[in-house]
């Protein structure tokens, strides 16, 4: 008691903790009652929460809580809300033909927005986020289409893929003329030089192309698919060899490599993986990138 009496602050009459720092003493005020009750309420709340909701990690799993709440279920609810929200427009998109979508500004912008998201999720790994492609993966922004660039043709390609496992996939076969010993090396080189001359590509220094021989080889072996004029055939996926766009590169070595080893790039069929409305949105998005016919 005497000890206690000593530790009383003269000004406020409140007892102090007895600690002193450079003449400053700490008042021993009790915690406000409201604060304590809030604190106890928080503890009770925490215990209730542990029982009701998933809380404690166990060795293989966790306490799931008596309410059975799951974050996955919560996501499902949100997704359902999203579908309801999109409802009217999504239905319109589902019902409209590709041409109708293209003609309606609001449907077009809705489809493009949805297509952009689907493209980022599914197509960007090969074609790039901006659909600019890379060697072996076509640039979808340009106007050169091996399998056709109309809305229906793009949709067909998306649904069934190219050289995929789908029964209706586009199948074109560029033979490996060199590897399979169908043509000797000099003829391959002559054909490559001839093909490059079709689109006026510069001839590397020190090379004297034998265009006459190349033309002969081309007409005998290549024209069947690529056409006598080299302008290709979208039925067979045979690229136009007279334009400025080269999927596997326009250099002399690259063209020789293409003839020697053949080319057989694969695009998966998306028909079974994505729902028809998403395919539609993707079709419109790709078509609207700028190259659509």
């Amino acid at each position, binding site marked *: 008691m005497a000890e206690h009496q000593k530790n009383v602050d003269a*000004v406020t009459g409140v007892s102090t903790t007895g600690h002193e720092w450079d003449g400053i003493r700490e008042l021993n005020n009790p915690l406000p009652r409201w604060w304590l009750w809030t604190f106890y309420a928080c503890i009770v709340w925490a215990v209730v929460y542990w029982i009701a909701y998933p809380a404690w990690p166990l060795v293989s799993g966790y306490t799931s809580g008596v309410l059975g709440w799951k974050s996955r279920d919560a996501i499902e609810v949100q997704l359902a809300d999203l579908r309801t929200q999109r409802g009217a427009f999504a239905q319109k998109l589902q019902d409209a033909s590709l041409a109708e979508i*293209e003609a309606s500004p609001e449907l*077009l912008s809705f489809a493009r927005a949805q297509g952009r998201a689907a493209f980022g999720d599914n197509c960007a790994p090969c074609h790039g986020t*901006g659909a*600019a492609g890379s060697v072996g993966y076509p640039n979808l*922004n*340009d106007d050169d289409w091996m399998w056709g660039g109309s809305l229906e043709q793009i949709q067909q390609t998306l649904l069934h893929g190219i050289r995929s496992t789908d029964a209706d996939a586009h199948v074109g076969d560029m033979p490996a003329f060199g590897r399979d010993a169908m043509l000797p090396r000099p003829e391959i080189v002559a054909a490559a030089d001839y093909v490059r001359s079709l689109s006026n590509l510069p001839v590397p220094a020190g090379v004297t192309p034998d265009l006459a021989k190349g033309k002969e080889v081309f007409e005998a072996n290549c024209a069947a698919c690529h056409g006598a004029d080299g302008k290709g055939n979208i039925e067979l996926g045979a690229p136009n060899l007279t334009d400025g766009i080269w999927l596997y590169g326009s250099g002399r070595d690259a063209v020789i490599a293409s003839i020697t080893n053949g080319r057989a790039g694969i695009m998966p069929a998306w028909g079974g993986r994505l729902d028809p409305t998403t395919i539609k949105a993707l079709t419109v998005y790709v078509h*609207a990138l*700028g190259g659509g016919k």
Partner: protein
Amino acid sequence: MNMATKVERLEEPEYDDDAPLYEARRKIYPIAVHGTFRRIKWALLIVTLGIYYLLPFLRWDRGPNAPSQAVLVDLANGRFYFFFIEIWPQEIYYVTGLLILAALVLFLMNAVAGRLWCGYLCPQTVWTDLFQAIERMVEGDPRERREKLKTASRTQRVFEAAAKHTLWLMVAWWTGGAWVLYFADAPTLVWELFTGTAPLVAYLWIAILTFTTYVLAGHMREQVCTYMCPWPRIQAALTDEYAFNVTYRYDRGEPRGSFKKSEALRAAGVPSGDCIDCKQCVAACPTGVDIRLGSQLACIQCGLCIDACDTVMNKVGRPAGLIAYDTEMNVERRQQGLAPVAKVFRARTLLYAGLIVVVGGIMVATLAMRGSEGVSVIHDRNPLFVRLSDGSLRNAYTLRIVNKQSLPRRFAIAVDGVPEAQLEVVGGISETENGHPVVEVGPDQTYELRALVSTSAKLPASASLPVTFSVTDVIGGETTTAPDHFKGP
């Protein structure tokens, strides 16, 4: 004591360093006063609250495609309507301008007559005034109230307290209710609120504002002004010796003394002050200060002490105006036998007024000259350019066309700056104007489109040509442009 002695103001007692820093709340129950400033305050209270509560119901015809509410913050559609003005989100700088104007007007008020804002116009003051009036109406004047604490039955006191808080809550609830009406069509929302079909957020905001009004105006009152508000601190730094303030003219008032005592002194030819120390100025003060200690932080300069003092001065047969709008400097000057000065036009008032005119002028000018259409453009980042099969180059852009008029308009799009440029707009373009694609933009809407610009001209290496997209109203002819670049390899 002889006549030449300078009269000094009674100063506040020295601050006690050993006293605790915390001051316990002193409940303030101001008395009712009658007079000029009380009438001004009633008038301003009715006008300001009238505007606040009724403005949402005022209609303004904007044609068929726009809301008909005169003042509406349409958050869902990102529009702010104020009579004939419509503000889009990107024009938020008008709000900045308004805030700058508001600050300058505050400065000007302060330079002319002190805390006019605090005393008459601030919502905290106006609502507190109203709540105190309700309190006096239910529980009586402070004197009556004190009596009741001793004499009235417990039942009566409980009933009165309940009545007071109910009335307060009703005012607070109406305050919150009026607030949400600024964010939706008022008559519709009122109907929805009463039928229980209004959005949850409306009820939530009403609840929040009911709570804040009830707490701030009913319970916290002068504590807000004294402890929470930054303006008293700022205005203390802005004021000068010429600014009129509610001032106790101690040159006239001191030495104070009871009415009888000062009458006796006067009869004996000894000078005596007019202040009879009746403390009515303190009793009338909504913040509980003693104005006779000079202008101070807690004084909101509402002028109610002037009314209280004038009433007393009339009763004791002394001239009114012992407390009045005056300056500290004039008190000094009168004592030196000099004429008081009232200098309203001085450097700072002229500067503030000039700035108000300039800022207001800029705002009016930009508002008057702003276009009713707009266009912004973003260049595709990936890919920057595309080589087409015929060897030509193409850049893609996203354009957003803005139509601020309340009717649909058609715009022709053109591009300039690239040789042999060909412009193509993605989507079904059914119409052209002089070869330029035309799109229709709905009333008060924007329209986003993808524009492709191609050229077969030979460009220099790493070309980056400045291009200009222009959007022209097919009928009105109004043109807006947006710059960008055309990139090449």
